[in-house]
């Protein structure tokens, strides 16, 4: 198992702007998952990208995966105040291990 390293640690943007978060990991994976955590709440699974996929979309979310660079990015387009949360990537081999995440603050 391994944890992802998210970057930046914190991100502040205005509503309507796009938010990009990056993730790096160390070893080969089966898939990579992104989760969101609102303060004090459980994690919510956002999107999963398999190791043989390069890009995936879900609503306002776009995830890319570059297995040669062992990195992934999560783009949230047209952000809303409700997107304010911490975001975690989880490179999956067996169990999920979480890093410190990116704290996203979206100002109205």
């Amino acid at each position: 198992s391994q944890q992802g390293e998210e970057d930046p640690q914190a991100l502040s943007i205005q509503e309507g702007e796009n938010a990009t978060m990056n993730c790096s990991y160390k070893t080969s994976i089966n898939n990579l998952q992104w989760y969101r955590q609102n303060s004090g709440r459980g994690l919510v699974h956002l999107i999963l990208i398999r190791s043989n996929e390069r890009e995936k979309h879900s609503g306002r979310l776009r995830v890319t995966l570059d297995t040669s660079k062992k990195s992934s990015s999560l783009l949230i387009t047209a952000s809303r105040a409700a997107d304010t949360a911490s975001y975690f990537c989880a490179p999956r081999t067996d169990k999920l291990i979480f890093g410190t995440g990116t704290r996203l603050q979206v100002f109205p």
Partner: protein
Amino acid sequence: EPEVTQTPSHQVTQMGQEVILRCVPISNHLYFYWYRQILGQKVEFLVSFYNNEISEKSEIFDDQFSVERPDGSNFTLKIRSTKLEDSAMYFCASSEDLSGGHGYTFGSGTRLTVV
């Protein structure tokens, strides 16, 4: 949408007391997990459970901790003799498979406060 249900949402206990945190995973899921999050810190893996036995546990999961699936629906975490440092949010999660194409579904957590 199916949910993982955790009870209670908040538990206050005295140091040295036993606590049982309860979880009802999604019915067709086979893999179950407990995680904890100390205030302001990372979400940490505690234990995974499959086929009525522990698959893997972290070094946090010492002899004070145990897990059980007492019936076909509940999944419990017991802390035998709580310490102040056990104060944290405890999250239960379940998944359909071990390393395939599905994410975990997490419950909303139990906030454990040891006084």
